[in-house]
């Protein structure tokens, strides 16, 4: 897929594991990582399929704890 692509960066220890981001991500980029526990004691969100990210910002917009920083990648063929 060409066009808008992004990379979500996660401040893991700020996450409370509410999973709102997972629920609104249209491309299934994110998952709750129940293999680890963050400093707050939650299972934090993690990036499962970065290649699917379309930099739509949905995760960042819904996150109550501002854990996301989103980078936009400009694809060679796309805009």
């Amino acid at each position, binding site marked *: 897929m060409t066009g808008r692509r992004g990379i979500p960066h996660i401040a893991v220890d700020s996450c409370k594991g509410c999973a709102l981001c997972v629920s609104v991500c249209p491309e299934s980029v994110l998952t709750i990582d129940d293999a680890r526990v963050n400093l707050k004691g939650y299972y934090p969100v993690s990036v499962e399929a970065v290649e699917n990210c379309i930099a739509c910002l949905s995760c960042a*917009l*819904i996150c109550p704890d501002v854990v996301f920083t989103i980078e936009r990648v400009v694809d060679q063929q796309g805009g």
Partner: protein
Amino acid sequence: MSVIFSKTSGLTETATHYCPGCTHGIAHRLVAEVLEELGLLGETIGCASVGCSILSYNYLNVDMIECSHGRAPAVATGIKRTVPEKTVFTYQGDGDLASIGTAEIVHAAHRGENITVIFVNNAIYGMTGGQMAPTTLAGQKTTTAPEGRQPEFSGLPLKMSEMLAQVPSASYVERVSLHHPKYIRKAKKAVLRAFTCQMEHRGFSLVELLSTCPTGWGLDPIDSLEWLEANMIPYYPLGVFRAPEEV
């Protein structure tokens, strides 16, 4: 590559005490982003009100004052009338604004105070443990309405935005929702309009943000978003209830 979203400098580094999935964090971020974008962080005085948001002064990077339950609009009035060149806002929940503070909010609107009110409506008292609020929906169970709110006993929920829009001197009143990214973008625009309204000396502005309280509602965070959409929006319709021209 470029960063297209990062944490606003309007928020401090302190992690919020809010429960996982509570939309207070989103509301804080919208206020902080708008103040940063308008270049107002150094020129703003905020009024924190009683409820979960009492500690908002720990999270917002502006001078703030803590107010007794419901009194924030009166405190904001005193501040704004002393330093009218500063941006003054209140951040109030529904227990605070729609119950114990109805006199203060109505009369701040009545005087056309040039302040901005951020009204977080989650249809329940959060901090004190999920009691019934004037905004609690009919049938909604709370710790003080264990069988659900009975309208014939407790009345129907108050629609504050509709009420305040009727106050002759109110300037801008809009209800938005925080249950979905698309709506959060709209909510931010509303917050921006409200603060712009104040900058342009247009008088009283209020944004009601429909919010969730997963803990108080007894739902998980994602179900809470769905509950908000399915139950709150039909009763509390979104939209602009009052707007000055050209805002």
